[in-house]
């Protein structure tokens, strides 16, 4: 797995957020992908040259609070999350920061939904 630089991570999160992605992939050439398959193809299937960026959780946990987003943005991120751990990271970050009721409720509901679908 490629060691991702801070610069690449920041850029990946920025692009991923704009594209509404929860995950992005980056190759050693600094090219970003929304699809792991295309990322691997871009480096001749050498997976050592590709790294994954967790857009939602990385964005939230870096600052330890949800100051990065308005309520609507954070709820959109919750809805887009596909894993309980990602949602939990958002909830934890929210509890560290503003503790907004609507965000916490949306997070709890999403975790319920994700658990139910397992």
């Amino acid at each position, binding site marked *: 797995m490629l060691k991702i630089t801070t610069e690449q991570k920041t850029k990946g999160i920025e692009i991923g957020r704009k594209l509404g992605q929860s995950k992005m992939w980056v190759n050693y050439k600094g090219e970003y992908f929304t699809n792991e398959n295309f990322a691997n*193809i871009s480096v001749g299937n050498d997976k050592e040259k590709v790294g994954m960026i967790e857009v939602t959780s990385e964005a939230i946990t870096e600052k330890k609070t949800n100051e990065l987003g308005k309520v609507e943005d954070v709820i959109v991120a919750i809805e887009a999350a596909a894993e309980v751990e990602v949602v939990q990271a958002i909830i934890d970050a929210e509890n560290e920061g503003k503790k907004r009721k609507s965000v916490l409720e949306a997070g709890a509901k999403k975790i319920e939904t994700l658990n139910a679908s397992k």
Partner: protein
Amino acid sequence: MSLRGTTLTEGKIGNNVSGESREFGLIGGGVAVVGKAQLDVAYKLLRPSDAVALGIDAAYDTTNDVQIYRHISEFYRMAGEGKTLRIMLVAKTNTPVTMTDKAKVLVLESGAISDIAFAFNPATAYVETLVDGLNADVKLGIPALQIFADWCDTHDMPLHTILEGRGIGDTLTALADLRALIVGEAAFSAHKVTLVCGQDWTYADGLSTLGKKFADVGTYLGCIASQAWNRNPGEVETQNLTNANLSSFLTGGLSNHKKYSEVYDSLETINTKGYVFPIKYTGRSGYWWNDGHVCAPIVMDASGNMNQHMIYYSHTMDMAKRALRIVYLPEVKKPVELEAGKLPGGIVGYYNAIGNDAFRYMAGKGFISDGDTSTDANSDLLIEKVLNIQFGVVPTGCVNEIKGTINLKSK
């Protein structure tokens, strides 16, 4: 009795339904010219000299490291002088996404723009970031342009958008599939967006580092303007891009500034993925656009309805809408006699005839194959006051490929 002997009076001319009332649009990053072309202002051109009068000429492009006159001159090279091209320069810091708001002003100038090209001329310090093999701002621009086209449609100005797919990546097998776009992790159909990622390689080779990655959207727009709206911009008989006298398109290429011959092996793949670029045909001299792709999958439902999966189907839908709107508008607010609250058969036939006449005219001109109008006799014209009519249009077909079988015979 007049002493004039012969009196000739000009007859009245009705609404233009020939399709020739179309106008075209071009918006792109540029720099204001003192006393001439200004940013965020719409200008109407009829020939390249109109652009020159605004201070936009070949030297303007070179000085400002943009492709604006290039697109205008290419538009008129393919379309011929006299076509209306409405242009707007915006600050070079704009991306396709931010250009869409400004493009609304351009479109509202006449409401007649059927196709608009978005030229992406970034500022000198711009750093290209690739996402799924596309420039990140171009990739973000695809859904934004579809939303812009939807806005135009809901304001009765349906149009198609052509986006400059500048700077595609070198690994063409890893390019995003425009026929299966994913936005926000969900499928997204941008049937009103065509992504052009081809260029006149020789021309681009003389440009700056940024310029080398441009795509010839003006040429593509010119091809569209040169032909009836139901035709394919890649039509072999009429749309040869090469002009040896002008040294135009002597060598075709992609917006990663790779020549046709360098990327030949990947062209079938990116054609299938919905990209637009120049190609050659063995046995003929010149380059042609590969097709009229849009950023949408090909869909046909169980009822035989199909989506606008090619630019000429997008045009057919738009122009049919515009023509039907014109012929039905005079019926609005008129009284209608009902029988037991329903539309009598004669009235239903009257409304059907209005639409069918418009379809017959378009079919007679060869713009569509057929069309059908079906008025709902149960339309509530008393309380809701809405006349419900269902239209069906059968577009003209297109020969994209000829497959034959050939044998040597002894007799």
